[in-house]
């Protein structure tokens, strides 16, 4: 299991290294500027994905506890569910913080036609 994980990490590092070598071989300012949007796109995707992963785990714990409590004491079901809903909203707000950062960054990527022009010009020079 750990061998597979290590292989995956090494492969990702090699791929990213080759991409960086290809882009750095250009030496033009546009290729360096391209890195910013590359970084933004990757970090936005991974940021919200990791935040949602952690949120889902925490919410699973909360709902498990609420269900166990209701199963032991069905009369307190209403109060337990109210507390559970409030807890879920507070946990979800942590994911919303990551989402707001992603929104701020995503709206800084320029249009696709501009990006294609920049990429084609950087390969041509």
């Amino acid at each position, binding site marked *: 299991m750990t061998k597979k994980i290590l292989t995956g990490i090494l492969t990702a590092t090699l791929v990213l290294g080759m991409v960086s070598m290809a882009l750095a071989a250009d030496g033009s300012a546009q290729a360096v500027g391209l890195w910013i949007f590359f970084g933004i796109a990757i970090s936005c995707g991974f940021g919200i994905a990791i935040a949602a992963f952690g949120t889902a785990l925490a919410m699973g714990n909360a709902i498990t506890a609420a269900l166990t409590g209701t199963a032991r004491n069905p009369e307190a079901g209403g109060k337990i569910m109210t507390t559970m*809903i*409030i807890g879920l*909203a*507070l946990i*979800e*707000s942590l994911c*919303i*913080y990551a*989402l*707001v950062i992603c*929104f701020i960054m995503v709206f800084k990527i320029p249009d696709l036609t501009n990006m294609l022009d920049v990429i084609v010009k950087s390969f041509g020079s």
Partner: protein
Amino acid sequence: MGYHFYYLNEILAAMGLEHFAHEHTHVIHSWLIMFIMIVSAFLITRGVKLLPSKGQNVFELIVDGLERFIIDITGPEGRFFFPFIATIFLYILICNLIGLVPGFFSPTANLNTTLSLAACTFVYTHIIGIKFHGKKYIKHFLGPVWWLIPVMLPIEIIGHLARVMSLSIRLFGNIFGKETVLGILFMLAGLYLVPLPILFLGILVSLIQAMVFMLLSTIYFAGAMEEAH
């Protein structure tokens, strides 16, 4: 994200105030919600009878439910800030729900509105603390022992400022995200009733976010009223 059609913007454009309406959409819709709340409150409380009519019954249900919910948390001495908390709840609820109606914009989908609400709560927390404890309110920030003050004081101040940020960004993120998802779905596949599940989820999220804002404000007030640790 394309052109948005808002009824109030069109009304103001007909009066020649197009640029003001486009730049301050959230302020105009906030005025609309204030108008709705004030007019409905005035109309309902005009003929208060001992045997309530239908409209009065609904409002009594809402007000009574809210008061019981708050007194549950703070105890009976928390009755004096009930109007503030109930107004915040109703205002945020109607603000969130009005974004689901096509042709209107949620004022809370703009960070300015939510930040102003969080700032009001923050200032009122400290006013309550000073009113209840006077000068000894500073003991809330100082921690249990005197030699921990250089550590506890910055942490408490940052914690209080983080409350403002968390309240405002939680509400803004939820409602803005809901509006963005709805906008994208309408743009992609609006003809096939695809946004319908998101609309249902939007009602749930609006209600829950209003309740969470009210609950957290109540907890902060209760924390300012009680004795320091």
